[in-house]
């Protein structure tokens, strides 16, 4: 399925928050930043990984509302009445979501570069960052797609997304280093999948190819992906038949 992305406005507005974070938040905490996470590096450099992931996080939740929209508007039914392969409809949806996340990530990384964030691993490292974000976005989209297919209500998807976003992000290493957290939160953070994904992106930006961190993240993301996309596939079949 070919789905054209002709909605620059949407891409822009969903980027609004991460850009605000990137520009203002990092400035606000620039002095504090060394203390809460970045050490000798600029806080912007430290937080870029978190902001990239935060964007992927909220972007992924748009997939669920989009699929609700497709069901409600009859667009899904219309596609189902054509010879198009069933799974192609779902993959097309996921692919366009991944495409969006990649486009947004590139914009954020370019902006970060302008603010002086130079990746330790260079251009190739950034490609790997983008791949990691896309991979995470794919797995995370599964949650919102499954929710959308199950509840068929955009409000519910939004509500759950909103409820999840801040606890998961703040109790992860997205914006502060683990050492800065109270000990109970450190525990939560080390079980928080967001931390794994953030850490992988962060080492690519700051340290270099730390494969154990990166592969650990891929393992966690793959685990999430299997569960969420499995649930999505199951629910999609139910909706389709």
């Amino acid at each position: 399925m070919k789905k054209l992305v002709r909605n620059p406005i949407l891409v822009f507005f969903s980027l609004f928050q991460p850009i605000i974070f990137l520009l203002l938040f990092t400035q606000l905490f620039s002095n504090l930043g060394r203390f809460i996470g970045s050490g000798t590096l600029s806080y912007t450099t430290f937080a870029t990984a978190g902001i990239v992931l935060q964007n992927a996080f909220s972007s992924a939740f748009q997939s669920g509302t989009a699929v609700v929209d497709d069901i409600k508007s009859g667009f899904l039914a219309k596609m189902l009445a054509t010879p198009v392969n069933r799974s192609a409809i779902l993959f097309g949806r996921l692919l366009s979501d991944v495409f969006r996340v990649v486009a947004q990530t590139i914009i954020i990384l370019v902006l970060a570069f302008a603010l002086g964030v130079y990746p330790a691993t260079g251009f190739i490292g950034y490609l790997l960052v983008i791949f990691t974000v896309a991979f995470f976005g794919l797995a995370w989209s599964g949650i919102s797609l499954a929710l959308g297919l199950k509840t068929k209500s955009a409000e519910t998807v939004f509500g759950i997304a909103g409820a999840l976003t801040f606890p998961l992000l703040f109790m992860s290493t997205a914006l502060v280093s683990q050492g800065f957290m109270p000990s109970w939160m450190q525990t939560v953070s080390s079980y928080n999948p967001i931390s794994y994904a953030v850490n992988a992106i962060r080492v690519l930006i700051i340290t270099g190819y730390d494969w154990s961190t990166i592969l650990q993240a891929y393992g966690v993301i793959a685990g999430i992906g299997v569960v969420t996309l499995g649930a999505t596939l199951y629910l999609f079949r139910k909706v389709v038949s």
Partner: protein
Amino acid sequence: MPGIIDVSQLVKTYGDGTKAVKGITFSVNEGEFFGFLGPNGAGKSTTIKILTTLLQKTSGSASVAGLNVDSDAAKIRKIIGVQNQDTVVDEDLTGRENLVLQGQLQQMHGPAIKERVDDLLKIVDLTDAADKRAGFYSGGMKKRLDLATTLVHNPKILFLDEPTTGLDPQSRAAIWAYLKQLNEQGITIFITTQYLEEVDRLCRRLAIVDLGEIVAQGTPGDLKQEIGADSISLGFENSSMNGGDTKIKARQVLEQKFDGVSNVVDSDVGLTVYAKNGSYMVPELVRAFDEAHIRLSTIGVSSPTLDDVFLKHTGKRIRVEEVSSANSRGMFGRRRR
């Protein structure tokens, strides 16, 4: 001879136990313009969904162009065009892009799509607006575009669920004109609608469903003749005030004094009486009601219409919802990604 659509003892029971379709049997011949009518919730949309492979039946059999809806679903999808109740066009794309996308969904390739799209734009009079985004189209234009998307792959059979509901009269007439044209080119049309006048004019045959069962089928002419009588609609003064009292009293009068009456049905304002030579009966009716102290507010005689057929078989008048939810959604353009 088997029809292009054959349905036998079709049953659909939903997961929650609702019996939407309770064993219907009908068949549509190739090239026919077939009307499928019924009040809301009668099982029309469920039947269409089963025939267009969007929903699995519970039991019975259904085939489209000789293909089984369960085992040959993929083949059926290639030869049918489906227009759902909701207008579905991608508002971020232009009219032309919408059609091309649909062509790709129908697995058409290369120059064949371009040519076909140009033709279709001409057919539905959208050539001038072809390169504007569909989000800027009026309700009628969107509906026409939606209709065009169902035709991209030259389907043999068109399934249309309420294609003109919520449109202004002019757009409605335009859609019906296209459908007539398409049917004349040999496309079989299976349509549900609330506009009985158009059905009467265009449909060769029709079936009326109510509560999941077929209550009547035949040509519009036959069905009207079956009523065999003119309809006299009576309105009573205060009929709503004394509950159903006036109606009951009036029914008694009709029963006692008029042999020619074949049927009496409740209507919104009073009663509808079916009788041969209705116009001759009017003076007698007036006199009889006067004697019984029943005050008439209106009286009208008409030869049978499909409305009467519908009323007789379902006990309801068909209601046209001028602005349906589907339409209001279309007006506040939804964005799709």
